């Protein structure tokens, strides 16, 4: 086996131009991080976390008597030429362990250490000589006794978080180097397995088993319909927007209230802070705007009501025919309500700080259109329709940066309110696919127009 050349000679000049050695260096770097993380983690666990765990789980309880009090002094050179003195309160305790009387100075965790001697003395004053106290001793070494138990959670976090980060960075980097060593682009892509873990940003949506690049539709079929088989989930429901507006209005106006109270107190005290008032005005304006936006959205959501879509089967197949049930709640009248089947392409390109996502509807077919719909508060408007998927339609496709998506879109024009658009994603499988028996396709044919199927 021939080692990669460390240097190349060209026209008499020696140079270091070796991708292989660069990769070796990369591997060594990540390997060093991994080893450092493991060592650091091991030290922390053995020095801090493990002893604390033993105190809380393996030490035996007994009662003891405080015989004396004192301060343990430790000096640390940190950095060199600077000395830090730490004080730790200690108590001499007489206690019985396995039938044998012991007298020992108590041990404690590093949390009781302090560099302030007065603070350490004040802590000692919490304990009185001659009092009986509950204490715990180490059965393996009975001369070790503690008077307090519990966990310093931040120490545990430190024990796992910092070394864990080093191990994760070093480990994933090392695995990436090993997997990519000497491999072409196709070889690296073909070896994808845990690569998704190594590069989560590039991880595409989960693919349906047996159908690469076709998205799974488990989330779309886990909600049964009341009339038809499935109720389709809505994409980016407006309720989240409403919650977002509400939270923004709440938090922003909380800040406005704090500022206003401060300004008011100043005013009552005979002082006027012009800077505070100047800041309060625009903040108040934004706060009022936030409340207005939230209320408007709330009223809109109430007036328009929820839109629900049920379908007779899912996933869809090219050439398939499916019943859909459109249900619209709310109050008032809708001038139009349309249901369309659309095919949308989405492409994302990242360049520097720019992330550019473009979406384009390349195909649209109106499935149903209803005019002058009146909904009541105690009932909803319903319409049945039939969706025909084209015979040779492109199936749903998803990859890390690109997608081809099918969706059913409901557009409504309520009276006195702006038009709304609600999207229900569906998945179309490739043509020629044999779906499992449990997913039977509906072949019911409806010839009536949607307006004749209005039910209330």
């Amino acid at each position: 086996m021939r080692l990669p050349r460390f240097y190349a000679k060209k026209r008499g000049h020696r140079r270091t131009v070796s991708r292989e050695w660069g990769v070796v260096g990369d591997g060594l770097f990540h390997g060093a991080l991994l080893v450092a993380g493991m060592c650091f983690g091991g030290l922390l666990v053995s020095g801090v976390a493990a002893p604390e765990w033993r105190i809380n789980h393996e030490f035996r309880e007994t009662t003891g008597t405080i015989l004396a009090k004192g301060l343990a002094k430790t000096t640390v050179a940190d950095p060199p030429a600077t000395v830090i003195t730490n004080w730790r309160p200690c108590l001499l305790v007489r206690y019985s362990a396995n039938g044998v009387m012991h007298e020992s100075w108590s041990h404690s965790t590093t949390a009781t250490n302090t560099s302030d001697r007065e603070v350490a003395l004040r802590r000692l004053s919490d304990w009185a000589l001659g009092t009986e106290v509950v204490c715990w001793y180490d059965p393996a070494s009975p001369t070790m006794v503690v008077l307090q138990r519990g966990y310093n959670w931040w120490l545990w976090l430190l024990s796992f978080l910092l070394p864990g980060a080093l191990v994760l960075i070093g480990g994933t980097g090392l695995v990436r180097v090993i997997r990519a060593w000497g491999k072409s682009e196709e070889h690296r892509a073909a070896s994808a397995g845990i690569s998704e873990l190594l590069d989560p940003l590039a991880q595409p949506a989960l693919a349906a088993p047996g159908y690469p690049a076709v998205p799974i539709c488990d989330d779309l079929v886990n909600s049964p319909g009341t009339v038809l088989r499935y109720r389709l989930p809505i994409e980016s429901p407006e309720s989240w927007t409403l919650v977002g507006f509400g939270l923004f209005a709440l938090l922003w106006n909380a800040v406005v209230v704090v500022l206003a109270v401060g300004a008011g107190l100043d005013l009552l005290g005979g002082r006027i802070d012009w800077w505070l008032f100047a800041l309060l005005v625009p903040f108040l304006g934004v706060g009022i705007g936030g409340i207005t936006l939230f209320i408007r959205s709330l009223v809109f959501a109430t007036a328009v009501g929820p839109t629900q879509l049920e379908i007779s089967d899912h996933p869809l197949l090219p050439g398939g025919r499916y019943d859909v049930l459109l249900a619209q709640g709310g109050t008032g009248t809708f001038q139009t309500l349309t249901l369309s089947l659309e095919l949308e392409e989405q492409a994302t390109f990242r360049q520097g700080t720019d992330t550019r996502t473009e979406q384009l509807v390349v195909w649209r077919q109106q499935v149903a259109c209803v005019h002058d719909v009146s909904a009541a508060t105690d009932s909803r408007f319903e319409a049945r329709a039939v969706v025909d998927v084209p015979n040779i339609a492109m199936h749903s496709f998803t990859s890390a940066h690109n997608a081809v998506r099918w969706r059913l879109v409901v557009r409504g024009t309520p009276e006195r309110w702006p038009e709304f658009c609600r999207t229900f994603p569906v998945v179309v499988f490739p043509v020629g696919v044999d779906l499992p028996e449990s997913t039977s396709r509906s072949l019911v044919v409806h010839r009536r127009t949607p307006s004749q199927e209005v039910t209330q």
Partner: protein
Amino acid sequence: MTGMVSNPFSTRHTRPGSIAPLDATGRPVDLDVLLDRLHGFGGTAAIVGPHGSGKSTLLTHLAPRLERDGRRAPRIRLHSSADIPAAWSAIHRAAPGDTVCIDSWECTGRLVGGLLRILARVTGRHLLVTSHHRVGFPELVQCTTSPALLRAIVGGLPKHGVWLGKVIHAEDIDQAFANHGGNLRESLYELYDRFEAAASPIQCVGGDGSIDHAGPTSIHRKIHESADGFSYVGAPERNLG
């Protein structure tokens, strides 16, 4: 349209590294002159210019030339401040004398960027960065754009002899440039759309018709059938086309 090809404005053909670096007049940039200038600055400098002016393209072509001089030139692209650890790591891993090429330096911010610069200086690494505005580095080149530059870029795209002047015209190029204020990337995106619209006059999906008026027949565009190329040291991941 015989000999029709796939859209030459797709990102495969227009991303940084796929297009040769050109100056504002559309002439090839003399990379040796820039390298000499960079050495004159001590090896650390910035490529400055507005969005879509060719900074990343220039950086992508300079980096392999820096490696030819006997050093390594690791490249890293920042998308946000979350990528700062990656920038630190790249500087830390580089050897003294290497030039770390960082795209979108402004993501580091003033404070962290200053610290990274100190780290690089103290440890003997050089930095070649791109930025939309001055960031305190010596300015290697100020990237500017012009209609002539865009025409030169378009004239260098694959199989332009087939479609340039027939599908995409000079007026289309100038209009795209004007529509996007000189942003070459956005101009190329618009030309992509124009090419698609011109290359697919009347086609339909599935033959079932759509709400827009579909024609009776479909025209299959002929996709490019084969392409060959070397993958050389410093080449972009795919050097085909």
